């Protein structure tokens, strides 16, 4: 037997609690419910004047009811990201909505950032791109953060596999207000790819698997045959002067 085989066998013989998975799943479910209460308690009060001044009014797809959404600055503020909130105020990205008639995903804005907010709570020393998007039901049924998000929004680039840009690590912090879910997403720096065709694509599922997203002959990222979920993408207004081919090539080289 090799060292590897012996080590695997001996470590594999260590017994953990038989009910560990069941107990852990229950603990997490309870924590998620507790988390919802904590988020409700910690949510910062939003001044009515600020809501009127900064809120974005979106017309619902199926009914004439108007949905008032938070601005990306407000969402960033909610997560305590004051500096990011300022960057979002200067964002020139257009608000865009994608719907399948049941859900609507609304892109609210994008901002660059550095040394902020990160995957596992540790500050890292690199540029990132931050986006805010909202998810709501067209019939007005409130959504709950406990349910998780059935929809994901990830950056994609023509000529590369669908998970290329998310392979460098991305995270999303979620919250809920008035039945609408908001996500502050942390992506790899997209501005270095500003001279390429980059967009944010919306899909239903957990991972961008080949059954959901694929590339066509021209290299465009498209939905796979048989995929039946929400479809659409958000156009990004990236600053082409910030494109950096060298940095982009270096990152993409790491994918090979």
């Amino acid at each position: 037997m090799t060292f590897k085989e012996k080590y695997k066998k001996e470590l594999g013989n260590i017994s953990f609690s038989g009910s560990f998975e069941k107990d852990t799943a229950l603990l997490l479910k309870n924590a998620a419910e507790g988390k919802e209460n904590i988020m409700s308690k910690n949510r910062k009060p939003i001044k009515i004047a600020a809501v009127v001044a900064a809120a974005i009014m979106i017309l619902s797809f199926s009914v004439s009811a108007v949905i008032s959404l938070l601005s990306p600055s407000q969402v960033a503020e909610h997560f305590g990201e004051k500096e990011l909130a300022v960057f979002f105020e200067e964002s020139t990205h257009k608000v865009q909505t994608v719907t399948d008639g049941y859900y609507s995903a609304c892109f609210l804005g994008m901002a660059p950032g550095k040394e902020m907010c990160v995957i596992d709570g540790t500050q890292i020393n690199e540029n990132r791109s931050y986006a805010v998007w909202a998810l709501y039901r067209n019939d007005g049924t409130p959504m709950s953060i406990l349910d998780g998000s059935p929809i994901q929004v990830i950056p994609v680039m023509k000529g590369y596999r669908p998970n290329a840009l998310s392979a460098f690590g991305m995270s999303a912090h979620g919250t809920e207000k008035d039945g609408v879910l908001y996500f502050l997403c942390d992506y790899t720096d997209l501005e270095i790819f500003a001279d390429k065709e980059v967009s944010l694509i919306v899909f239903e599922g957990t991972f961008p698997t080949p059954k959901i997203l694929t590339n066509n002959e021209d290299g465009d990222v498209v939905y796979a045959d048989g995929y039946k979920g929400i479809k659409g993408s958000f156009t990004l207004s990236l600053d082409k002067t910030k494109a950096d081919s060298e940095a982009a090539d270096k990152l993409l080289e790491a994918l090979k």
Partner: protein
Amino acid sequence: MYSLTGVEYIEKAVKAHSESMLRAAYSILKSVPDAEDAVQEAFLKLIEKRPCFGDASHEKAWLLRVTLNISKNMLKASKKALSAQEDIPYEDKDSNVLPCVMALEEKYRTIIHLYYYEDYSIKEISSILNLPQATVGTRLSRGRKLLKSMLKGELDL
């Protein structure tokens, strides 16, 4: 309408990754109850941070990274220095591979574990531990040398 609710996702993640996370935590903490605590804390971070993953392997790598960080912090906090033989309830008492790995310093033990148990490459280990590849390579090499000396060349590493 959608494939996974938050609750379903939690259950799926626990089922898919608990085994790896528990072994990784155990390799640092050398204690079953402590390893279970560390892994539960890692899953709590998952629902707190709600990261998005490009694919399932990223999800696993993220969970392992968090598990290892939590385990290291627990080890520092408790300042335990267990003998390698003490807490190891495995059947084959005659074998000395596991005790030898457990006798290594944590910085070598972690890399040996990720390389030999999880079959990660040096590049992947570097990404999980947020260390330069050269450092991972050096520590792997040093860990192997120490193990060879403890095992008196009995096994191929």
